[in-house]
């Protein structure tokens, strides 16, 4: 739907670029408030040459990946375990719903008290955000597997691991993937936010530092990098993952 836009889609980009070039010449906006495209490109160049930009990007991506793996690595098995037993699920579900609704960003100050300013606090926030977002979806995914299917598989003699791999995991997969994707979207925001408040490196930290010195070229560059990184991540990871799994099995409803 938004695919075959082609050349027409580049028009607004060109228009925006032109406007960006012309606005500083035609208006009296102070230079510190709006850097020229040239300045931002210059900042990109110097950042790449002295290696500071790739370093920040890698620091942020590493944290995101680590938080994603820790959060989901704990949430998915735990979520499945919880959902398999009705009583355990009844016991923990309200608690998990509540903790999920606090949201990672609200944890930032507490994370700083506990772990100090730096990578530890940022990682805690993002893993926390991803864990709670993901576990909720996993539990829901397992619980919405039709009871009929479960009974059918049981009466055919499936037990234990066979039950897990042939019913539970595939049955809950669509919801788990929805969870992966949503938790990544929230996690990405939490990462940038946590770096801005509690970071000592990474893109978010660099942007907030730049505010102190009115280095708007660094800020605008950071915004563009964040946008491009998200598009790349989304295209590389999730669109592909969804196509390979959910869409193939015909489970996707175009809602989210």
């Amino acid at each position, binding site marked *: 739907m938004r695919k075959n*836009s082609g050349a027409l889609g580049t028009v607004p980009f060109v228009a925006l670029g032109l406007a960006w070039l012309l606005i500083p010449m035609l208006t009296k906006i102070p230079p510190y408030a709006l850097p020229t495209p040239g300045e931002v490109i210059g900042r990109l160049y110097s950042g790449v040459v002295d290696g500071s930009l790739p370093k920040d990007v890698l620091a942020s991506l590493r944290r995101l990946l680590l938080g994603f793996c820790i959060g989901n690595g704990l949430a998915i098995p735990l979520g499945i375990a919880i959902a398999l037993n009705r009583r355990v699920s009844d016991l923990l579900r309200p608690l998990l719903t*509540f903790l999920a*609704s606090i949201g*990672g960003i*609200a944890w930032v100050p*507490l994370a700083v008290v506990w772990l100090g300013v730096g990578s530890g606090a940022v990682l805690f926030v993002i893993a926390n955000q991803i864990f709670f977002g993901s576990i909720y979806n996993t539990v829901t995914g397992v619980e919405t597997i039709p009871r009929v299917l479960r009974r059918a598989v049981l009466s055919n003699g499936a037990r234990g691991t066979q039950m897990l791999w042939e019913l539970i995991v595939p049955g809950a997969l669509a919801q788990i993937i929805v969870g992966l994707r949503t938790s990544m979207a929230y996690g990405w925001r939490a990462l940038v936010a946590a770096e801005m*408040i509690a970071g000592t490196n990474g893109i*978010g930290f660099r942007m907030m530092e730049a505010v102190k010195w009115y280095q708007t070229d660094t800020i605008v560059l950071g915004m563009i990098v964040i946008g491009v990184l998200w*598009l790349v991540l989304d295209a590389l990871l999730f669109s592909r993952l969804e196509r390979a799994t959910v869409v193939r099995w015909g489970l996707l409803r*175009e809602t989210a």
Partner: protein
Amino acid sequence: MSVGAGASFRSGAVGQVAFRRIERGVLGAAGVAGLVLLWQAAASLSGVPRYFFPSPRDVAGAFTVLLEKGILPAYLADSAGRYLAGIGLGTAIGLALGLALGVSRRAASMFGPLLNFFYAIVEVAWIPIFVIWWGYGLRTILVALVYVVAFPVLFNTQAAVRATPRVLIDAVRALGASPRQVLGEVIFPAALPGIITGFRVGAGFAFRGLIFAEMIAAKNGIGYLILTSAANHATDRTIAGMIVVGTVWLVIDQLYLRPFERVTVERWGVLRHAEE
């Protein structure tokens, strides 16, 4: 006799459902109570300083003080005002643009890529430049909220409008409906479930965005409370604030957004139809 049997069968089923609901509530409450007890035990037995790991009692105390001094109600009102204004304005903008892009294929393919790119620059990333432009304050927060709500509403509205069955539009048009009637009486109702879904997604992001924006750019509100209290070693207040954040979101989501979505979706029967 058969009536009696039917009635007793039915009341048995009702009883079972009620029992299940009670069981669920009791177990859920037990889970929460269990965590609070564990937390209290850990805090009092570990001997860790209070500012580092306050106990539930400390947090309850902080909560009471915040209530009695009127800080919490005032901050809640600040946050609520910003939130409502932000999502209201954001929804209106997203809705208008989404309808326009949904109706016009040309506009959609023209502006689609640009919008995708700007949506990828998450609202959190806009805060630094907003701070440069407008300083720390209401405008920065409000624009960030409008930004984060408008996009999901826009995309979902556009997709939902696009999915309106062509037949319906043609039929109504053949009956002599004006373009305005087509939009108001066919396209808009058909797109409503999608619009609501977009609204729910946007409202969720905006709630987190609000807390963050208040941490950076406000001198009051719940986000400010959480951050400043931690900086002043009043960690019990921080946790009280976090609990308020969680509770408020739970109330918004479970009491308003989800039922709202269910009602619209059920009334128009779109989701059920798609699921079959």
